[in-house]
């Protein structure tokens, strides 16, 4: 006799009717749920993860014989669209099995009437996002609403935990564990390097969830695209490979062409259409495009009307828009795990191999693609380290809890420590955050009478009034958009010769660009956007007004604004090892291996564990090129600090550029000679004390730091997303937070918000942490190679000049240069 089925008959029948049986991992999750244990399910795409996540809920809801007992299961996804998609997918089994369970979504689009009804009469299963969960948890009726909750399903958990959104989610999970002690959680994740991190996130820092792993189905078929043209030394456009990519698109049903930045997406889309003699339906999808345009592309994909989509990370996550049978990754993969997740977008069934092609843009990227291929073959992962919870997010959460039923400080602190990112939270930091939320947390106690939180006699903290609650609800969430300008296609009117053409407003909105991008342009500049070449006419209000450039115009503004994702430490180490081992070069394309041989001959190869620094003269200037392989963000910070030091050493630096592998700076002082006569020491130049006073000085005026501060200030609730009186123009807020930053930094440098800002800068835009680790690693191991000419490797870094030049940020230097323009004219 077969063992009795663990499933109710309706489920067995349903599986049988489709010719399926429940998979072992689906049953394992059911077992764990019945025992009240939380579980992390790590499985490749196509393994039936979603059904596995919901099966215990559906079974339990069936077994409790239709009696309604309030909210049973909460499902959280990183994307609103994914929640909607899942609601659709759950509909089929529920209908076919004749279950009585109700499923609803709650997103930003849900009407107020429906929200109210959901609070009074919740569905069995509610599908929502982390931001909506935060709002629910801070609701006055959060306690009764969640008291019946049995199960939490977290989808794409690997993607949720890597950001401040994950911090916020971890805090809300901790809250749910207090409000509904019987609850258990299921996390669905792609393969990650440290599942234990996710297990702690899911179950709590002291009570980690169990683990169920499904071994990956068929191995992916990945190759590096072979092109008849030689790989360029530098550049990121991958123009040389468009013909071959086009042929690959032709040979497949539906191809996803992934790129790393919006600019690359624009370029690739443009380039493919230039050679699209067969008029293949090729579409473009990136985050800056107008939402309705994106929805159209998604619908066309789902209906099978497209042949290829050029896209950015916006399509990274697990929505099935169509039957993708090839993934093309343009540019370097930057991380092995990200690459594997992208590849998983093709052939969404476990038993069929995914097909993917990697297309390096230049020779360094070829090495990186090779390293990534090896990593994929070994299934090695390089997902990010577990986060340390951000204090600005904690401040938002504390206010949220105060808005619901309030809190006792001791109990809330204990609860927060069960959230794994906050397991190490110091009590002093927690107290500082509470005081920050209550009265700003300043040493100067002048805001007591305006306090947002007040303690009653029993020591219970609550929001002071209803207006505070309203403010909180307007500002919830951790995603702070960089200030965006709408791109409007104005209707051009030709001006008189010699005069700028006049462009009227009132045309179509094409999408959005970051303000700082628009700021780098002057009227008349041309750039690619939404698949067209546009002429920038000027900024009006919150809009960048553009016109269509005449046919045949070349875009003037560089189309690459830097990889969004810096090279992972893991891939960097592999590339370094490959460079140091000439035995491996035979398998590389001829132009790449001869490039490396030439480097060995003319300079030397950077060895693992050392830092190679080359100096040489060129065109009346003197150059220094270093190869730390730490990613462009860390290199940019290094460049900023190094130019300051070179300034002090009287080397008169003029500028620097960097890419993911190295950094080049140049100036008027002969650095080779200065090193030879002992006037300049590389050990001192690259010494770790760079991260002391030099860093502090630079941070004082760094635009990146001010941007980081603004984000923290918004998340922490210091300033509102919509600053009072300035709703019309988000750009004025930037100015105001800069002033606030200056005042706070000077008067209370240890303030909790500056602490949060520095923590962000360490891992975020400035990547100070990685720079610090590098400086430690290479201390005493700098190898100097003076040269007569630029080296072969150096060329690849230097070619970024003119494309990516970054200069120091000393404001007075820039003002002086502008002033001198007036003087020169007066003297002429």
């Amino acid at each position, binding site marked *: 006799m077969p063992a009795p089925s663990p499933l109710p008959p309706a489920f067995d029948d349903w599986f049988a009717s489709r010719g399926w049986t429940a998979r072992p991992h689906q049953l394992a999750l059911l077992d764990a749920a019945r025992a009240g244990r939380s579980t992390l399910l790590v499985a490749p795409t196509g393994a039936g993860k979603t059904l596995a996540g919901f099966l215990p809920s559906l079974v339990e809801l069936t077994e409790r014989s239709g009696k309604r007992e309030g909210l049973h299961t909460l499902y959280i996804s990183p994307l609103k669209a994914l929640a909607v998609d899942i609601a659709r997918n759950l509909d089929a089994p529920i209908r076919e099995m004749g279950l009585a369970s109700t499923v609803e979504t709650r997103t930003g689009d849900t009407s107020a009437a429906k929200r109210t009804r959901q609070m009074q009469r919740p569905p069995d299963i509610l599908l929502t996002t982390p931001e909506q969960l935060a709002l629910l948890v801070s609701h006055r009726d959060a306690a009764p609403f969640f008291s019946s909750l049995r199960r939490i399903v977290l989808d794409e958990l690997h993607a949720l935990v890597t950001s401040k959104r994950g911090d916020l989610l971890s805090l809300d999970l901790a809250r749910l564990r207090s409000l509904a002690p019987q609850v258990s959680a299921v996390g669905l994740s792609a393969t990650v390097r440290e599942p234990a991190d996710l297990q702690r996130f899911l179950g709590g820092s002291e009570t980690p969830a169990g683990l169920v792993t499904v071994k990956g189905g068929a191995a992916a078929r990945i190759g590096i695209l072979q092109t008849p043209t030689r790989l360029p030394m530098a550049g990121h456009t991958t123009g040389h490979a468009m013909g071959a990519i086009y042929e690959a698109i032709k040979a497949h049903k539906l191809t996803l062409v992934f790129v790393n930045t919006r600019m690359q997406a624009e370029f690739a889309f443009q380039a493919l259409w230039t050679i699209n003699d067969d008029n293949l339906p090729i579409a473009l999808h990136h985050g800056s495009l107008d939402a309705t345009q994106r929805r159209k592309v998604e619908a066309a994909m789902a209906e099978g009307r497209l042949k290829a989509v050029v896209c950015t990370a916006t399509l990274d996550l697990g929505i099935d828009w169509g039957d993708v049978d090839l993934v093309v990754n343009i540019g370097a993969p930057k991380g092995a795990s990200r690459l594997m997740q992208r590849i998983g977008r093709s052939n969404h069934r476990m038993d069929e191999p995914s097909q993917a092609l990697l297309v390096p843009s230049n020779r360094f990227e070829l090495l990186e693609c090779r390293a990534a291929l090896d990593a994929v073959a070994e299934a090695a992962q390089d997902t990010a380290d577990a986060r340390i919870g951000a204090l600005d997010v904690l401040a938002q959460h504390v206010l949220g809890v105060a808005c619901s039923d309030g809190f006792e400080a001791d109990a809330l602190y204990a609860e927060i420590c069960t959230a794994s990112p906050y397991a190490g939270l110091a009590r002093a930091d927690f107290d500082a955050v509470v005081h920050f939320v209550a009265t700003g947390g300043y040493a100067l106690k002048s805001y007591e009478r305006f306090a947002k939180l007040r303690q009653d006699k029993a020591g219970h903290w609550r929001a002071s009034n209803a207006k505070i609650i309203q*403010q909180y609800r307007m500002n919830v969430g951790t995603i702070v958009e960089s200030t965006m300008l709408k791109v409007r296609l104005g209707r051009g009117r030709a001006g008189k010769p010699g005069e700028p053409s006049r462009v009227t407003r009132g045309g179509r909105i094409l999408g959005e660009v970051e303000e700082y991008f628009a700021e780098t342009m002057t009227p008349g500049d041309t750039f690619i956007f939404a698949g067209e070449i546009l002429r920038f006419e000027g900024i009006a209000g919150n809009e960048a007004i553009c016109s269509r450039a005449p046919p045949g115009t070349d875009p003037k503004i560089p189309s690459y604004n830097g990889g969004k994702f810096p090279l992972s430490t893991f891939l960097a180490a592999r590339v370094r090892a490959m460079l140091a081992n000439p035995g491996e070069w035979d398998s590389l394309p001829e132009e790449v291996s001869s490039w490396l041989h030439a480097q060995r001959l003319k300079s030397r190869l950077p060895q693992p564990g050392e830092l190679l620094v080359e100096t040489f003269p060129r065109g009346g200037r003197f150059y220094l090129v270093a190869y730390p392989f730490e990613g462009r963000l860390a290199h940019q910070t290094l460049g900023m600090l190094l130019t300051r030091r070179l300034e002090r050493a009287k080397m008169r630096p003029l500028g620097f550029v960097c890419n993911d592998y190295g950094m080049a700076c140049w100036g008027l002082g002969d650095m080779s000679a200065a090193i030879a006569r002992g006037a300049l020491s590389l050990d001192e130049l690259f010494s770790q004390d760079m991260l002391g006073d030099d860093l502090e000085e630079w941070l004082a005026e760094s635009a990146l730091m001010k941007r980081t501060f603004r984000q923290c200030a918004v998340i922490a609730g210091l300033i509102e997303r919509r600053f009072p009186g300035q709703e019309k123009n988000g750009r004025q807020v930037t*100015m105001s937070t800069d002033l606030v930053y200056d005042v706070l930094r000077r008067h*209370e440098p240890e303030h909790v918000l500056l602490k949060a800002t520095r923590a962000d800068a360490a891992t975020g835009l400035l990547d100070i942490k990685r720079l610090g680790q590098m400086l430690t690693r290479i201390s005493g191991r700098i190898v100097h190679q003076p040269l007569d000419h630029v080296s072969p490797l150096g060329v690849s870094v230097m070619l970024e000049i003119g494309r990516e030049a970054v200069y120091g940020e000393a404001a*007075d230097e820039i003002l002086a240069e502008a002033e001198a323009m007036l003087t020169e004219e007066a003297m002429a």
Partner: protein
Amino acid sequence: MNAVAASDRAPAEAVFLLGRLVVVPDHSGALWLPDERTLVVADLHLEKGSSYARRGVFLPPYDSAATLATLSAAIARHAPTRVIALGDSFHDREADIRLGEDNRATLQRLQAGRDWLWVTGNHDPQIGAAMGGDSAATVDLRGVTLRHEPDAQETGFEIAGHLHPAAKIRMRGRALRRRCFALSARRCVMPAMGAYAGGLNLRDEAFRPLLGPGFSAHLMGDARLFRIDPRLLLPD
């Protein structure tokens, strides 16, 4: 010649004539009138931070101290016999009441031994007696009218604040926006000195009736003022 960085090569202190009045823009944002031994400052907006705090926005409560520190330094540099604050010295009508003890003491110390005139502004139409000094809507110095809000109908000479002029330039791919003086033959519009005072771009419509084509912009750098050709100024 010694090699000095361009930013250190300050031109000799720029002196201008408004009618018969000699004016010297100071890089603190103050205007020094040497013949009158008078220092003019505009738009201090004291207690702007605590004004926001009333609405639950807890900006660092150090703006008044920071503003008074800037003012103190300018006063120490010029040792004026008279200080004129050109309106909007207080961010709102209760700001003088909220001003902390230390800041009050600083203000009293600055007022000691010299004349002090509060010109009234739209934010502070009345000045509390506890703030010391005298108050007036306008002042006339050698035929130049000093008032808070610039008057486009003014046919004589004028020094005013109110608009918080700021200017934006772009050099080496980087945009910079700084507070500035706007000087024309008949008018000086002063930058705001308040630590939390925002700025209005000189290319804004509001400046058009006030500044003729031949005006100059003096941008506040960290170490000194920089005179920038108006043709280099960008809109926001």
